[in-house]
């Protein structure tokens, strides 16, 4: 006797699931592959000013490489080194920028001098920008090649910024594409040839390989780190704010009249979306009076201090949190931060 399932035959929805569900698997895998390609994305962009440095033979010129952060992460140990070009001396200063804060800028001043007998023409300068950034325990080193041109001529320098061309390896696509093709092959074999073994083998390989390699890369700790921090804006407890804080007139006057010394600590986490706003608000207030001193502390670096003030409870962290050391009072998040900070400072409206 035939099964009822086969008597009914492939319904419209069964066909739909074949043509919608399984392509969805492949799409998801490709999406994951694509994100892996974009993993370790540069978090800095580099601009050169002026656009076309023009130097007369035997003369010196100065141009700037401006590194701009587009990320909530801090870039560390930023180094720009140039490939030597005969007849051209290139000296960037400083040699290393130790830290570029989230959404901020830093500038390398580059002295370029051309030897007197250097033929007139356009010269391509190749620079290598190297820096690191960390998300919890995972740190990434970014290595970018920047190219731009210098003209040796008697003409005057033209001033306008230019984005150097960045070269990336096409091999970055290879591993995820191969992985996705393998899985696609296994799914096709299963659906259209009824072979389940290749699919099960690939899935078991994904489990064993994924968990083992993930643990080797300490991704389990990374996952724990992400989950252990309550970023107040991330789960929708309040809205993230990215604008530069503006103090109102009442706040400005209250801060001018502040009589007692206050020490504030802003606890932050690298991936906290609202933390830069909380930091900027404290900075803006402290700029109005000498009675406020402040520190920014990565909560992972001083967990004991954070725990003693309820910022870390049962291994869970709530950020941003602003602690007033004298009283031990803490405020969380950035909602109505200006008013709550004034209240923390003891100012009554």
């Amino acid at each position, binding site marked *: 006797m035939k099964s009822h399932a086969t008597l009914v035959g492939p319904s419209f929805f069964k066909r739909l699931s074949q043509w919608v569900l399984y392509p969805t698997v492949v799409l998801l895998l490709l999406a994951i592959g694509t994100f892996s390609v974009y993993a370790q994305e540069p978090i800095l962009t580099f601009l050169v000013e002026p656009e076309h440095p023009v130097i007369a033979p035997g003369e010196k010129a100065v141009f700037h490489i401006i590194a701009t952060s587009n990320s909530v992460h801090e870039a560390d140990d930023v180094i720009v080194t140039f490939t030597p070009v005969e007849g051209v001396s290139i000296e960037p200063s400083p040699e290393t920028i130790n830290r570029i804060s989230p959404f901020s800028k830093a500038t390398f001043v580059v002295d370029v001098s051309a030897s007197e007998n250097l033929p007139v023409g356009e010269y391509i300068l190749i620079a290598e920008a190297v820096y690191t950034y960390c998300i919890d325990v995972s740190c990434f080193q970014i290595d970018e090649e920047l190219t731009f041109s210098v003209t040796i001529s008697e003409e005057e320098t033209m001033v306008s910024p230019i984005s150097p061309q960045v070269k990336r390896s096409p091999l970055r696509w290879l591993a995820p594409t191969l992985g996705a093709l393998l899985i696609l092959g296994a799914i096709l074999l299963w659906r259209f040839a009824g072979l389940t073994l290749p699919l099960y083998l690939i899935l078991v390989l994904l489990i064993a390989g*994924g968990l083992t390699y*993930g643990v080797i890369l300490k991704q389990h700790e990374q996952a724990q780190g992400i989950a252990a921090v309550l970023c107040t804006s*991330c789960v929708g*407890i309040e*809205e993230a704010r990215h604008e530069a804080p503006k103090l109102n007139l009442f706040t400005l006057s209250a801060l001018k009249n502040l009589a007692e010394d206050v020490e504030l600590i802003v606890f932050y986490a690298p991936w906290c979306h609202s933390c830069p706003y909380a930091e900027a608000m404290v900075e803006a207030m402290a700029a109005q009076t000498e009675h406020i001193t402040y520190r920014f502390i990565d909560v992972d670096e001083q967990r004991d201090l954070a725990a003693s003030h309820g910022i870390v409870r049962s291994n869970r962290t709530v950020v941003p949190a602003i602690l007033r050391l004298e009283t031990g009072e803490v405020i969380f998040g950035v909602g109505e931060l200006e008013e709550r900070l004034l209240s923390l400072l003891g100012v009554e409206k």
Partner: protein
Amino acid sequence: MRLSLARRISQGFGLLLGIFGITGIGMTHIIFPGLHCYACPLAVTICPIGLMQNLVIYGIFSYFWLGAIVAYGLVAGRGFCGWFCPFGTLNDLLSFRKVRINKLASYSKYAILLGTILAAWAFADTMFCKICPAASIEASIPYLFLGVAHVNRPFLIHIATLSATLVGMVVIARFWCRYLCPMGALLGLFNRVSFLHLSLNTDRCSRCGLCADSCPMGLKPHEDYDNHNCIKCGECIQACSLDALTLRFSPNRKP
């Protein structure tokens, strides 16, 4: 042991793991096999959807996340929705009207899963968490009482999505699991290869339809027992007087 009792005990373990932070052990490295907000003050496990969004935002390819999801998918697929997920348990408690599933609409959860990934990438933020009803119950409301959250626009959005979902659950059994859950979509991708699966003995089946009437997901197990929406809860097995349906744990899925 009756299947329903075994399932209630298993769901109890799911709930217990969900609030295990009450012991003070804090966050572990375990990815939860269901929808459970890691922002919950008592959570000790990681929400796979919340983590996935963070990984997309930071452009990290997590082998650990992939390995865990494939493991859960291969072991039980959507069985975790029926047997373990605390939000699924809440759906269960409100399952009064076991109406037929709209098959086309049931694909919307895959769109929500893709939308969750795309929104995280486009806005560099965990957009789904801001409307997730599990986060409403497990984070927004507890943190209101803990003094961290306030009644503001994000809080009201959470309450609105939670209310709408609760109404949906009352009107349609397992409404969230059927149409909206991105975690259900993720596990659903593995439902037809998972070791835990429903099996139909067609020689015994009389096509009476009692199993279809009992199914909280509104499926027709006697016609399509290997559906991507099946949460393997076993309600149909208990409803079948001819013992035509069984729950099996094996890579061999032939009836």
